[in-house]
């Protein structure tokens, strides 16, 4: 790979193209907003005064009288729909001739002395995004990108390729953003989503530029092979990720989304106004999460490795049977395992307390204290987690040559020395990735916490991901939950950087 500098033209070109894609979406939004404002003005023209009348003891009006005594008929539902929206909401568009396109806009506002003034204006519907054109542009730029990256030999290939790559991302993001506008009403008014449509591809530019340049390298066939996966990743992971990242800066109050900057992050990092030892504080939850991850992984590895060593004993009989039985906890869906263990931990009727009292011990109220509830979660997840480590260790043990042990025997090494000096170092290359993977899984092990202790007592056993879930789907504070998730992501990013260093160091030491 040649360490060529990206040059100045490349980012400029990328900026132009990506901003163009974003501006297209933004212009679309601005236009429909301008038309809406014009409609509000137009609706000041011919107006009808409509008075709602309550009757029969109902809390809502059941008759509507237009000025002059005419009563609205059920066919005037579009007027009714207006009346129940207050003046703050944008005017409604109505399709009066039923051809599927709106052809009349109405606005209502409360009149002095009761009732509503309703006005109407004819409408030329705002054009929708030129989807066909955008698709053609996407295909064209994808083609250009591929051509520049793989075939075109000149010095412009790198910068132009990166530019078209950024354009692709911009277009894909614009598609996603325009869909997101339907999900997040009100976001359109802030103009922030279109802005993000232009900015996020730029942020991704660096990565993409590097990728495109690497395509010029002799290994480009390898890059071609992973290109489908990269495209899949960008659609399935990058776009939702970018959307979630953007969401963290907004607050959605049921009707509109409002830009709040970093205030969600500030609030979370300021412990949400609780003492640090309060279960709803970010730092308390982080502490629980770290303890949860560290203890789990330690138990998984030591139990898994221990069993793997026993299973390797040449004198052991029925090995296959044990191996299958020990993998069973892993094979059972973890929801089911979690629910079974929750039942077993029940204070009054659970199997575990029955066992304790049969042994003459005192029953434990598992979910009444943070420590015992945490222990219950830990036991359940250990049951679920050790088979994986066992399988990894078994595989790695097979690959250690027997003659090393024989040589050690000749030298008079004892069992512990053999384990420490032969088994452990040779297991490390296989175990280290498994440990990193396992710790990331455990860090985000939602099911066990949510189902076994359910955060009892009082959210004190919740880990970060469960807390984020509660904020998002129990309280429907999506922006705040997104900020929480971004923090979780940053923590894991930091962790993976550290482990990368560690495993590199290990490679150097033992490689």
């Amino acid at each position, binding site marked *: 790979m040649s360490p060529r500098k990206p040059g100045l033209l490349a980012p400029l070109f990328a900026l132009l193209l990506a901003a163009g894609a974003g501006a297209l979406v933004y212009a679309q939004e601005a236009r429909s907003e301008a038309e809406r404002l014009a409609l509000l003005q137009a609706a000041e023209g011919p107006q009808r005064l409509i008075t709602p009348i309550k009757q029969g003891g109902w809390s*809502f009006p059941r008759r*509507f009288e237009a000025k002059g005594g005419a009563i609205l008929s*059920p066919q005037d*539902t579009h007027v*009714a729909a207006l009346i*129940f929206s207050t003046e703050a909401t944008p005017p409604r568009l109505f399709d009066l001739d039923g051809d599927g396109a709106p052809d009349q806009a109405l606005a209502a506002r409360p009149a002095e002395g009761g009732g509503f003034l309703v006005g109407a204006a004819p409408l030329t519907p705002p054009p929708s995004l030129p989807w066909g054109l955008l698709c053609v542009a996407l295909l064209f730029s994808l083609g250009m990108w591929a051509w520049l990256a793989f075939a075109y030999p000149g010095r412009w290939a790198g910068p132009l390729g990166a530019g078209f790559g950024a354009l692709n991302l911009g277009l894909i993001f614009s598609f996603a953003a325009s869909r997101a506008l339907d999900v997040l009403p009100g976001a359109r008014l802030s103009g922030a989503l279109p802005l993000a449509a232009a900015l996020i591809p730029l942020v991704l530019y660096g990565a993409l530029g590097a990728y495109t340049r690497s395509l010029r390298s002799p290994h480009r066939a390898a890059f071609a092979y992973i290109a489908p996966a990269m495209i899949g990743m960008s659609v399935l992971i990058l776009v939702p990720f970018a959307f979630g990242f953007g969401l963290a800066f907004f607050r959605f109050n049921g009707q509109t989304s409002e830009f709040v900057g970093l205030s969600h992050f500030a609030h979370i990092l300021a412990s949400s106004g609780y003492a640090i030892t309060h279960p709803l504080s970010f730092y308390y939850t982080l502490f629980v999460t770290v303890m949860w991850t560290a203890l789990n992984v330690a138990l998984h590895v030591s139990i898994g490795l221990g069993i793997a060593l026993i299973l390797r004993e040449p004198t052991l009989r029925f090995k296959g049977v044990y191996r299958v039985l020990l993998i069973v906890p892993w094979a059972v869906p973890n929801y089911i395992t979690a629910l079974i263990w929750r039942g077993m931990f029940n204070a009054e009727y659970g199997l575990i307390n029955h066992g304790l009292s049969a042994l003459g011990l005192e029953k434990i*109220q598992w979910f*009444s204290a943070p420590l015992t509830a945490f222990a219950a979660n830990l036991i359940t997840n250990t049951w679920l987690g050790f088979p994986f480590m066992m399988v990894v260790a078994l595989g790695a043990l097979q690959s250690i040559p027997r003659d090393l042990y024989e040589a050690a025997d000749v030298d008079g090494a004892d069992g512990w020395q053999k384990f420490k000096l032969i088994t452990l170092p040779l297991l490390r290359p296989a175990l280290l990735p498994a440990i990193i993977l396992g710790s990331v899984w455990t860090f985000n092990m939602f099911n066990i916490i949510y189902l076994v202790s359910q955060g009892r007592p*009082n959210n004190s056993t919740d880990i970060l991901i469960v807390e984020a879930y509660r904020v998002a789907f129990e309280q429907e504070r999506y922006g705040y939950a997104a900020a929480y998730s971004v923090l979780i992501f940053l923590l894991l990013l930091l962790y993976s950087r550290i482990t990368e260093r560690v495993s590199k160091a290990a490679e150097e030491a033992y490689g």
Partner: protein
Amino acid sequence: MRASTLISLALLLACGGEAPPQPIQLNLWHAYRGEETATLEALVAEFEAQHPTLRVNAVSVPFDAFPNKITAAIPRGNGPDLFIFGHDRVGGWAEKRLLEPLNLWSAPIAGAPDLLERFFKPTVEALAYEGGLYGLPLNFKTLALFYDKALVSAPETTDALIAAARALRQRDPRVWGLGYEVDSLYFHAPWLHAFGGAAHFSPDGALRMDLKGAGASMRFAHALRAEIIPPEADSQLITGLFYKHQLAFVISGPWFIAELKDHPSWGVAPLPLVNGSGQTHPSGQDQPAGPYLGVEGLFMSSRSAHKPEAFALMRFLTDEASAKRRLKAAGQLVANRATYADPEVAADPVNQAFQRQVEQAVPLSNSPHMQRLWTPMQRALSLSVVEGVDPTESLAELVKRVEESR
């Protein structure tokens, strides 16, 4: 061979020429399963038979995904014409303009009986939001008191309930008095309302709650919890204990009936009057417990292309004949009042109990802000009812958390 092909082709063409006009297709989404689906489909078939130009496509959508599907599909015009769901999201849906206001559709017509008079009034009011009526009620759900006839009889007051439970527990400490999920606002609501602690939201999302009443209700529930409610009781445990005759009373809703198929001695009664609530009831008696009223509504999409036809189906599904079938075949507690005049229906003690209970029930607020209350309230209840923390403390935290989420 060739001749027969030609003939059949000619036949096809002939038929094609005389094809009847395309029937209008109505899409109806629901989250029903089992008997409820079968009953709904039978009713829909009957409607189609009465209206040959209409076709109804009843689609079952998973309950968990339902609200998201509605908010995603309707604005884009892919949604149903009609759908059936709980009323608690009406406020949010109305704010998003997903629902057709029915004020005019259901307006009284001279010379005809008023459509809305066929329902229990609270069930209709639950579907109104900010002056608009957004649905017609199909069924209602509320909590009532289930009891084991082998152990106890239905108590009139909470004092009687506690006394009966105490007596049982003295005889056999394995037997518990009362079972319900103590840390859930839905199940705590009967006490909350009896003590005057109801929670509302103003339109701009500020929490309005009488903290004194709420605190008193939590102290009351904590006393119950300490004496007669089994610890860590979730719904499976409660069902299990009730089956083993180790639990005298259960607060639960009509869904519990399905779980009691093999129970030999269960009965159901309205929730008892609450002693010592400090609230005066107009009748001079103690305050009745006030469980939430949940209403299953039939809603029309504001984007439906066939509103008159959709409204005809709404009228049909909520009329007395349909309601009777839904009650008898699917066990739904229908909102149509006239149904309960039927002697067979009226004689059923379950129907009686729930019909009496609905009069005391408090419609669950359909404000879009309600969603912000459940989780903080669960924590407050868990602190004060389960662990006995002073309610002033847990409620102060609740207010702070709810305010934060605005």
